[in-house]
């Protein structure tokens, strides 16, 4: 089930109301059933995959806790192999097969591996990682194994974060399923407020920007550098609003029932370095990779000193890119970040010295600008339809800028990227810029709290007017041609 669907609009209030009407003992059953319905709205039969990995991980958790020495490791490996195995088969098999076939063709080896015709189960990359964090934490003695099968199943399947995160940790989530949640008006209000803001970001900002981005990125050779730059800039905000909007809806939905899911985004465009981006963007994923891949890897290679870290960064971000999609363009995107982080790591003191000659505000502004520019440029690889397209776009980003030094030049660019339709096209481009400005103003004014709280301390009239404005905007300015969440295919 998609969050931006009519079904969800019915699903959410019904599930939440029933949750509070039921006695505590039955609530996990209700949530589990609701989560199954939520998942099965996509491809019902895939629920078997979830069931299989849940059973394996449930058993593995208990066995790890009860066992000693080597046996503990064996069960951990069983869990990891099962989860990664499922991921490899459903998500990466075809990618590997295609590449092997290409090599086989080139070397005239005379064979080719058949491709599988399967649809990627939704949320696969998310719930497998969340499940693995469970067995890993049990193995590290940071978490007691969950004996209640239903609660463990709920940990994996909890519908708000089932399909696109945040990727939770057992320490945060499992205990919450054991606790008794009473109806709290504050929680409901906070949760719904968060959901409204999330829907606004996703349906109004992200999906509307997507119209322009899709026009340009589907046929980049048709457009000049100005158009490519605008579309890429729009994409940076689209992917932020899309993904963080989805996370807000997830966290908000959980909050109404009294559950707290971890923060996944924290004003990433205010990052002053590429390293900082990953402390503010998709936090649950970067901390997952950090805790379970980077740290252990670098620890075991620590005698290499700094080179352990260099290797760790490159390898971790290579895999992070691969996590995002079974395509070379994602691998390149991830690796580009790896290289940037290595650069920042190796030159840390040098850069500090150089930048310290500037006054702090200038320093901060330049850092933010450079970091944001890096983010925007890197996203060419993320959004480009192929590596070839991405390289073409890079080569042409700065061409054709002379033509916009006139009013007619600007008009023609806007018409072109809007889809050659004077009214609707210009409308979308102008609205796109206005929405970005609106978003940034709100983010800036809520630096110390969070964006959904912007009118928290205002009078009732302002509050109500603001929320009504957001909701009406979602209906009227929202774009609805079934735009899916970008991270949906992960």
């Amino acid at each position, binding site marked *: 089930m998609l969050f931006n669907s009519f079904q969800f609009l019915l699903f959410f209030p019904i599930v939440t109301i029933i949750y509070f009407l039921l006695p505590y003992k039955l609530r996990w059953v209700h949530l589990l059933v609701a989560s199954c319905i939520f998942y099965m709205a996509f491809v019902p039969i895939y629920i078997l995959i979830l069931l299989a990995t849940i059973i394996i991980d449930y058993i593995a958790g208990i066995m790890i806790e009860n066992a000693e020495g080597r046996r503990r490791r064996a069960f951990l490996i069983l869990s990891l192999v099962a989860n990664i195995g499922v991921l490899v088969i459903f998500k990466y098999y075809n990618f590997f097969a295609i590449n092997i076939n290409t090599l086989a063709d080139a070397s005239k080896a005379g064979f080719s591996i058949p491709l599988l015709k399967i649809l990627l189960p939704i949320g696969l990359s998310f719930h497998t990682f969340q499940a693995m964090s469970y067995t890993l934490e049990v193995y590290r003695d940071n978490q007691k194994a969950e004996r209640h099968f239903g609660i463990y199943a709920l940990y994996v399947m909890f519908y708000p974060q089932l399909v696109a995160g945040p990727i939770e940790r057992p320490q945060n989530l499992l205990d919450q399923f054991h606790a008794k949640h009473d109806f709290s008006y504050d929680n409901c209000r906070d949760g719904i407020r968060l959901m409204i803001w999330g829907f606004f970001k996703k349906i109004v900002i992200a999906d509307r920007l997507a119209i322009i981005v899709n026009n340009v990125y589907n046929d980049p050779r048709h457009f000049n550098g100005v158009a490519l730059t605008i579309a890429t800039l729009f994409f940076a905000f689209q992917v932020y609003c899309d993904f963080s909007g989805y996370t807000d809806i997830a966290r908000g939905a959980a909050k109404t029932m009294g559950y707290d899911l971890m923060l996944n985004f924290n004003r990433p465009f205010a990052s002053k370095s590429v390293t900082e981006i990953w402390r503010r963007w998709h936090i649950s994923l970067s901390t997952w990779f950090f805790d379970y891949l980077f740290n252990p890897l670098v620890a075991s290679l620590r005698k290499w000193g700094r080179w352990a870290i260099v290797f760790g960064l490159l390898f971790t971000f290579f895999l992070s890119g691969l996590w995002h999609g079974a395509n070379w363009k994602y691998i390149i995107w991830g690796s580009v970040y790896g290289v940037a982080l290595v650069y920042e790591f190796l030159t840390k003191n040098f850069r500090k010295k150089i930048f310290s000659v500037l006054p702090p505000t200038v320093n901060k502004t330049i850092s933010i600008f450079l970091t944001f520019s890096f983010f925007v440029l890197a996203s060419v690889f993320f959004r480009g339809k192929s590596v070839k397209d991405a390289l073409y776009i890079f080569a042409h980003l700065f061409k054709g800028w002379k033509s916009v030094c006139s009013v007619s030049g600007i008009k023609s660019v806007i018409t072109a990227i809007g889809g050659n339709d004077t009214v*609707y096209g210009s409308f979308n481009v102008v609205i796109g810029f206005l929405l970005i400005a609106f978003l940034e103003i709100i983010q800036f004014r809520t630096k110390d709290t969070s964006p959904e709280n912007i009118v928290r301390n205002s009078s009732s009239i302002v509050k109500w007017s603001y929320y*009504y404005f957001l909701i009406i905007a979602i209906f009227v300015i929202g774009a609805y041609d079934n735009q899916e969440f970008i991270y949906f295919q992960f």
Partner: protein
Amino acid sequence: MKKKPLFFILFSAVLFLLVYLVQTGIDRSYNKNVSNKFTRLFNHKIDANVMIFGSSVAYVHFDPSIIKNVTGLSAYNMGWDGTFFVQYNCLIKEYLSYEKQCKYLIIAADIDNLGKNELITRPDLYYSHLSNSYVYNSLHEIEPDKIWKAKYIPGYKLTLLNKAFYNDLFIGSRIHKTDTSNGYEPQNLKWDKTGTAKPFNARYEERIYTQLQETINTAVKKGIKVIIVFPPMYEEGYRLVLNMDWLKEKYKVLTNKNVYMIDYTTDTMCKNRSYFYNYGHLNTGGASIFSTKIGNDINNIIATGHN
């Protein structure tokens, strides 16, 4: 704490009201400012002696100015691309509810006229008229789920309003040049045979055929003469339609002293490719010739009482 749940109810109630007002406001604004043949039809502003309904085979074939020259009768072309009888039935029914009626009602029967599309064609042209029961019933036949929600759930329709709708709303009548040509849209195109050249059966649904009968009866009761027209088809394309004869028989059943059927698929112009731009559509030149022919046939009907 008892106040708080009331708060949610009050908030939601005001929200529903607001959404409903916005929706109604947009509809009113659309009906007032957009001047295309649909809004004019629903505002009862169309007045002609010969009313023409149908899909693109009406829209691009019948030239009202030529028909007027030949017959002396004013004509209006309500045809629209891609719409089949199940969809434009509401337009006819709405017209038939006028006080002042036309003399002749032409239904241009293209191949799939009695079939159904999966999707409504150009729903944006109808969204502001969903409170009209004819419109609702017609569209509900095609996409029941979506149309039901659009009518009864406040806000749902707002999410359907798309590029085409807003284009019309903001530019208004500027892009609809067809008001000067009384609904006719000539196609100055060169021959382009697109689509597969495999034989096929025309679509047909008994239920829609029944609706056609009912509408024709309503028209006749109001003293209107109905003319079912089979527009010309390029003969090569015509031969691909396997059940054409059967279809014509079904239409023939409907004829009587007030309901005529004129079949141009056997006319000599069907052999001449230079009149067509694809198998089923005449170009400007072809349409002019055809309009003259239909004008003459109308004159025949006036004079002799049959075609």
